[in-house]
């Protein structure tokens, strides 16, 4: 009977993404939605990313300041800038938000790691706005992103935590406590006065809005770590420099400079002092899995080019006719499947833990209030008030428990470092087997070799991610503590 037979799509899925294929039998609609996203990304690759990837990469070595706005405008058609924005706000994020993000990112990065990063970095910037429950800004910033996207104008965000003297240190509470922090947001009347620098911020030079975590007292970074919303155009804020990167060049890594920048109270996301949890750990718990997907995508791109190379006759014979090349292909295929298992395990698990935040009636009921009111100033100030924030916080804690966030951080960190190491090894081996004989495919694999290295570094180095896995899941000494409501000032 038909009911016992898998659908064609389910069968194909079972081959490509075993975890999703299995789920497809239980939740067709949801999984079809995810596959729709992947197909859209594949279309973008074919029409936009692949035709420009090599040339763009080369050009940005000669002209590091150049930025290809066209690829971002094109991305609007596919709504890639709404991936992390909840459906109730007009975005695409549903109960499979993290998984959707990861799948899209893998697909994009299979064409170009840099273009994939440029698109993903935006959602990373959106995430703290959501995770901190800063609803006061949803109707303005997120609404603007969605609406402008419909018109083909990319309004971009970025996420800034790294400082010149603190990279690993801002990713783990124990280290942050002893970090040498350079940037400070000093409390002044009506808000904060910010001085200092952030560095390596992906998309920082193009972003209109930046979510940033920073100390309000440099001598006590852990206790005073706070999440802010920075807007381009704030006086004294600039992005004076972008780096010349080894790879993933299509996305800029920018320095952010703050010279006496005033940030009003309304632009504190969550409470002062809650930055490590709502600004970093919860974000990392959601985003490290997708970074595993970036690595997987780059490796998959390399695999596909390697396969094409192997099928191409050279000197009258094809590499693929050799046993050793077939063995290598099988190894690579196994690694890709292992990686997909790792990042999907994390992201599906994460979605299961986090889905309440986007689908719970209590959450949705907040959007029954007409938008006219929700977008009004008085409503925003209500949400930004002491009680408003407290209420949102109670809701938030109801949706996400400390243990959930901690478990998710563990799996995310695992997926991140394991996928990145696997991908690095895969790409390096592909190139080693190809040798220097020129072929169109070798250029792509060389680019993948440069691109993939970054996945071992950002979103916490692979060493830091190993420590995070150890501390959360093996030793149990790191717990994500979601801050409680109604606390005034720094804890």
């Amino acid at each position, binding site marked *: 009977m038909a009911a016992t037979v898998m659908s064609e799509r389910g069968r194909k899925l079972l081959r490509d993404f075993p975890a999703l294929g299995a789920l497809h039998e239980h939740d067709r609609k949801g999984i079809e939605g995810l596959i729709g996203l992947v197909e859209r990304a594949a279309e973008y690759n074919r029409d936009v990313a692949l035709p420009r990837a090599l040339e763009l990469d080369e050009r940005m070595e000669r002209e590091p300041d150049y930025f290809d706005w066209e690829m971002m405008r094109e991305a609007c058609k596919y709504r890639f800038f709404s991936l992390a924005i909840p459906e109730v706000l007009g975005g695409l994020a549903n109960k499979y938000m993290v998984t959707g993000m990861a799948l899209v990112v893998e697909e994009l990065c299979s064409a170009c790691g840099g273009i994939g990063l440029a698109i993903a970095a935006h959602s990373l910037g959106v995430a703290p706005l959501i995770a901190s429950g800063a609803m006061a800004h949803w109707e303005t910033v997120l609404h603007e992103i969605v609406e402008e996207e419909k018109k083909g104008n990319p309004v971009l965000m970025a996420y800034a935590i790294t400082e010149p003297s603190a*990279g690993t240190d801002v990713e783990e509470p124990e280290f942050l406590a002893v970090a040498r922090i350079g940037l400070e947001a000093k409390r002044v009347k009506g808000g904060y006065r910010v001085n200092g620098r952030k560095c390596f911020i992906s998309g920082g030079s193009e972003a209109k809005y930046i979510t940033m975590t920073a100390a309000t007292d440099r001598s006590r970074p852990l206790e005073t770590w706070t999440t802010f919303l920075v807007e381009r155009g704030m006086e004294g804020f600039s992005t004076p420099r972008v780096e*010349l990167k080894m790879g993933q060049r299509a996305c800029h890594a920018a320095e952010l400079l703050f010279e006496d920048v005033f940030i009003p109270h309304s632009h504190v996301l969550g409470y002062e002092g809650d930055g490590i949890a709502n600004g970093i750990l919860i974000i990392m718990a959601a985003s490290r899995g997708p970074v595993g997907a970036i690595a997987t995508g780059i490796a998959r791109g390399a695999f596909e080019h390697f396969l094409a190379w192997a099928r191409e006759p050279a000197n009258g014979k094809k590499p693929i006719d050799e046993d050793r090349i077939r063995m290598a292909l099988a190894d690579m295929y196994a690694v890709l499947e292992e990686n997909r298992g790792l990042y999907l395990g994390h992201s599906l698990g994460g979605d299961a833990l986090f889905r309440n935040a986007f689908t719970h009636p209590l959450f949705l009921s907040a959007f029954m209030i007409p938008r006219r009111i929700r977008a009004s100033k008085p409503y925003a100030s209500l949400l930004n008030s002491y009680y408003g924030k407290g209420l949102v916080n109670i809701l938030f804690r109801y949706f996400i428990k400390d243990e959930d966030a901690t478990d998710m951080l563990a799996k995310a960190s695992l997926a991140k470092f394991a996928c990145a190491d696997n991908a690095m090894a895969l790409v390096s081996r592909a190139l080693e087997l190809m040798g*220097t004989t020129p072929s169109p495919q070798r250029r792509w694999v060389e680019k993948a*070799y440069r691109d993939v290295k970054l996945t071992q570094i950002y979103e916490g180095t692979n060493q830091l991610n190993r420590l995070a896995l150890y501390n959360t899941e093996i030793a149990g000494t790191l717990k994500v503590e979601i801050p409680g409501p109604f606390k005034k000032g720094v804890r």
Partner: protein
Amino acid sequence: MARLPEFREEQEYRILRDSAASFAADVLAPQAEELDLQPAPWRVKKALAKADELGMLSALVPEEKGGGGLDDYAFCVALEEIAVEEAGVAVALLAHNAALLPAALGEFEGLITGVGEESYPACLAFPGEVALREGKVNARVPFAFNADGCPFITLIPTQEAGTRAVTVRSDAAGVSIEAEAYPLGLRAARPGALKMEGAEPSNLISGGDMLGAVERALFLGLSAVAVGIIRNALRKAYAYARERYQAGKMIIEHQQMRIFLAEMLAGVEEGRSLTRESCSSRELAPAVTAWMRNTARAVQAATDGVQIHGGYGYMRDYGMERLMRDAKYCQMYPTTSQEALLRLLDIYETG
């Protein structure tokens, strides 16, 4: 003070090591970034001209033929030191000398093209298909260092078991050279593809196992270059690890960083011994082994070196990512490591 353990060498090698090291530090280090980003032919040529003061432009040509007369190990010592600053220039010198090798070993009429003249860097058209028919050369060589901008090319026809060689001027009729559009690394060694259709040779050289000699020189030279890259990675990463603080201490105090650095140190030790050992043998197998091992080590050392530098390692300014690219090409030329591995067994079987 951090230092490498003393590597026991005769006086002559130590002197050569010192002078090659100061050439590299004085001439190459200040322009290492340009040699990677904009390796214009004039820039490379100028650097090579300076290397001639060490006899590096005719290193393997015997003194009685007007060359520098270095033995294999001395040549490797110099290459290692040069590669500590700029592996691309070291490989340009290696390819150039390998191109002169047939003339240095064999018999021919007239002058050795390239020795004592302003004609460098020479290109060794290897590996590829090369045929000599009725005194004319036909060739298809997909990838060779120094191809782009060389004055002449040395080729070893495949049909005669590699016992003959020819040189062809790059401006001779029938020669076409296409520069590699966007090489990953070793950019100062300006790689490219060569094609010849009925090109007129300027030297015909015969005698001995030219192919074997040239291959051996490449494997030995590249294993020395790989050691140079590992040393560069170690030196840079060690210095950085003592400057950078994270988690309240110098990152060199984090054990994983120490393990990365120690691996590099082991790579230098092992790499030098392997190179030295294989220089003392006339056989190909030890050279192949040294090449496989050292270049794999160099790729790992460079990758770990970038990792120790964190985000900074990924950026051009720190000169670390260049090592990852350079090391990878050392591992991919003149053959792939797996083909080289199979070759070892072939040698074992056929004696």
